[in-house]
């Protein structure tokens, strides 16, 4: 077992435990703090999978912005005098069954896919030597060549604009 694999399994373990804490803890602020651990560990997974740009974006947007948003929303919607602020509803048994079925079907599909088995075991996903991951993604996103993602990128900026305006309109006091 080489070092990268060991780190992968350690990070995966911490990730799953932190995710279980997010859905399992009784105080919802503690859940939100466990969510920070989930996001940071996911960034570690991205670094191990040679996706440095995604890892940076994950830290900036998820561990930074989304967590702050969630904590602010928790602060603005506090209900006084309740000890267990993160209870489960009476559907939790059905939820366990549904999640087990979904997970089993995902694993069945992953086990029986011919495409996946053919491309399965070799982790040779490195870029050619001398090419930076961030540079390659930037060229794919911005350069107006045939196979770039300029149009989806612009549409994404439009989506963000609409989301900002919508959040302001929905959330303002009237």
């Amino acid at each position, binding site marked *: 077992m080489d070092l990268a694999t060991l780190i992968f399994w350690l990070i995966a373990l911490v990730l799953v435990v932190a995710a279980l804490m997010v*859905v399992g803890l009784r105080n919802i602020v503690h859940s939100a703090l466990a969510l920070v651990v989930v996001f940071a560990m*996911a960034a570690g997974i991205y670094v191990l999978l040679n996706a440095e740009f995604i890892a940076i974006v994950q830290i900036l947007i998820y561990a930074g912005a989304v967590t702050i948003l969630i904590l602010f929303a928790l602060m603005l919607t506090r209900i006084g005098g309740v000890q267990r602020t993160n209870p489960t509803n009476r559907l939790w048994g059905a939820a366990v069954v549904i999640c087990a079925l979904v997970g089993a079907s995902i694993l069945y599909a992953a086990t029986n896919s011919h495409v996946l088995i053919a491309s399965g075991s070799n982790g040779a*996903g490195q870029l050619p030597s001398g090419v930076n991951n961030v540079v390659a993604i930037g060229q794919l996103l911005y350069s107006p060549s045939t*196979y770039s993602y300029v149009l989806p990128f612009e549409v994404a900026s439009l989506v*963000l604009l609409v989301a900002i305006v919508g959040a302001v309109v929905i959330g303002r006091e009237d």
Partner: protein
Amino acid sequence: MEIALDRITSGDVLLLGAVLFCIGLYGAIAKHNAIAVLMGIEIMLNAINITMVGFSFFNQVKPYAGYLTGQIFAIFIITVAAAEAAVALAMIIAIYRKRDTVDMSNIDMLKF
């Protein structure tokens, strides 16, 4: 699907993504607090991102975008997830202001 302990395989990454997705799904179904439901959805989106980056890493077919199609997908998923979180939290705060609750089982104005 192959899971090996001496190196990272695509099966490892898919297993991690599937487990995370199921945990997030449980949180999204079985919680009273709307913000907890949103946290479950964020965990599900992260699981999908991990799967996407894993497919990008283990890609052997080399489509036109090189190895990076999965990572581009992950970037757009992160974008949409950020927009979704902002709008959803604004809606939760607006509902809290009008009805004084964030309990999902009490927010049933559209139920007939």
